């Protein structure tokens, strides 16, 4: 489990992140969302014991970050994929992975098996000795992810894991991340890709130099936005908007094309009444659906609010 308590990092007069407090349970995929410069990478680096917090505390499996005696243990438990793959371009994929296996103290036989399996799965076994400098960005990113996992770490920190991948490769990586979760790994992802976060993250934290909001992606939208239903009709009578706005349970109504968009208190209870009322008015209803707010809507709203 990762526990952060008022974690703060300043660089000179710049506060990269302040009072970052949260708990990331084991076996969870946790997303850190936020614009550039929001402090996501700084937070990840602090948790990897690469940089020291200015104040506050954090623990990973009861090992406290910022303490020299814990740093080696923590680093051994974490697999890090940085923003840039940072591979040794003149070396082959095999050697890139092999050296990291050695750095993490993985026994030779296990290392060889793991590299063979990984490179075969990535379709790179036959090209294992080619310098990775000649590989595509996506290919490099995959090797970098494999490198982060070479020692089978409990915690996996991924900084923009799908940033440079094509949709097919990104899908493979997402599926792989979900597989890691099923294996019991805890994954912390920094991402701008809100759709991706929505798809794979159990919990997300919106960060803008501090935590703006924490929750599961769907729960965040529900807490922020009133529930909206959209009713599609063949033809909307001119007086309908005024009449429906006068109903108690309708807080807001508007017309978008041939759709009537309503904010209601409780769609499960209020929708049947709205439909009955419309039928009584002789309005032909074609479709009724609930409008869902994406994580992007949540992100934009919260970040705008955070900007003040």
């Amino acid at each position, binding site marked *: 489990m990762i526990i952060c308590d008022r974690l703060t990092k300043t660089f000179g007069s710049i506060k990269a992140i302040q009072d970052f407090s949260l708990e990331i349970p084991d076996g969870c995929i946790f997303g850190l969302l936020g614009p550039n410069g929001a402090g996501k990478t700084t937070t990840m680096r602090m948790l990897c014991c690469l*940089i020291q917090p200015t104040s506050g505390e954090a623990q990973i499996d009861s090992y406290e970050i910022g303490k020299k005696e814990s740093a080696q243990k923590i680093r051994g438990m974490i697999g890090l994929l940085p923003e*840039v*793959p940072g591979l040794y371009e003149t070396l082959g994929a095999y050697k890139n992975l092999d*050296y990291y296996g050695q*750095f993490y103290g993985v026994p030779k036989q296990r290392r060889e098996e793991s590299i063979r399996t990984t490179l075969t799965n990535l379709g790179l076994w036959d090209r294992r000795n080619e*310098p990775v400098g000649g590989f595509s960005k996506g290919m490099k990113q995959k090797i970098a992810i494999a490198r982060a996992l070479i020692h089978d770490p409990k915690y996996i920190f991924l900084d923009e894991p799908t940033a440079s991948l094509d949709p097919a490769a990104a899908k493979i990586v997402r599926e792989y991340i979900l597989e890691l979760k099923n294996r019991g790994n805890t994954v912390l992802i920094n991402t701008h890709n809100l759709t991706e976060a929505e798809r794979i993250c159990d919990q997300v934290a919106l960060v803008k130099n501090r935590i703006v909001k924490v929750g599961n992606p769907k729960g965040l939208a529900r807490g922020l936005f009133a529930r909206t239903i959209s009713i599609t009709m063949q033809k909307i009578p001119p007086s309908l908007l005024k009449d429906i706005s006068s109903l108690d349970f309708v807080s807001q109504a508007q017309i978008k094309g041939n759709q009537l968009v309503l904010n209601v208190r409780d769609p499960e209870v209020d929708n049947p009444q709205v439909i009955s009322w419309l039928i009584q008015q002789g309005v032909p209803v074609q479709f009724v659906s609930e409008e869902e707010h994406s994580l992007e809507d949540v992100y934009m709203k919260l970040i705008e609010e955070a900007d003040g």
Partner: protein
Amino acid sequence: MRKDLDEFKKQKLVIGSIIAMPIVLGVVLPLVMFVPLVTIVPLERPWDVDGLLQIGNLPDDGSVPWTNQTLENVTFNQTVIKNKTLKNVILTNCIIVSCVLENSTIRDSSVQNSSLSSSSLINVTVIHSKGSGLDGRSILAVSSDLMFTKTKPSEIDQVLPLMFNMVLMIFIIIPATLPTIIATYSIVGEKNNRSLEPLLATPTTDGELLAGKIFSAFIPSMGSTLLAFSLGVTLLDVVLVPKVGYPLLPNLTWILSIVLLAPTACLMSVLACVLVSSKVSDVRAAQQLGGFIVMPVVVLMLGVLSGFIFLSPIMIVVFAGLFGCLDLGLFYFAKAIFNRENILTKWT
């Protein structure tokens, strides 16, 4: 370390230059210096001692004098001695005529028609006499044939040690300069390639990281220096043996230099460069600063070239010890100031 060496192996041009530089400086250059020397400088070793003045030649009939008495272990002062065999005597202010002298000391005297062996002569005039195995100072030899045990060094004997010292300095300078490019690149290069962050995130300790970087620069540099040294020594012997009659190299000074001084100088340079590399954010800045790092070795070289320092075995051990202590200090200093956060986040 193996990773860095593997990366290094891929750089064919760098390998080429690392092998070529010591060979040019340590093999070709000395040959260019020594070949004309052995061709031009005369071989003869003239017999001479300080202050010897020779006048005339011994007449052909110069033979061992007749003696009728042997004197041993006696001291004579202001005495004229004729027709005697003198062994282990000390003669001062004497005139010695037709004597045989062995293992004696003669001062401020004159010797005529005598035979001398294994004796010491100080301020003595030797007329019509023969001598061998002598040791002497301020001698006037008139029509005598005197052989001294201490001969004046030949020109080649005088020049060779100086030239050997100069060439030896090349084998100290090479391992000190050769690793600067690799070592200065070691950390800042990885930072610029963005491969440093995942490396720093591994459980590898600061000491292990530094040691890996140090030895990956040290091994190729020393390896290439040793190769050039072996080649240089062999070829110099090939050139010099016909002239001096026996292989001169490697002597104790050279062996101590290549075993003690060159590695400690190389390590000092590597350590300082790695230290610089961990402190700067730009490869060019690191390499520029790396130029200063060989200064202690340059100072040593200037001392040798100016004749101020002569590289004797003791001097080699002293300098190697000094460099070794500096190496140790530099390693602990580099380890103490190695800061992952600064390396990763500082770009100015």
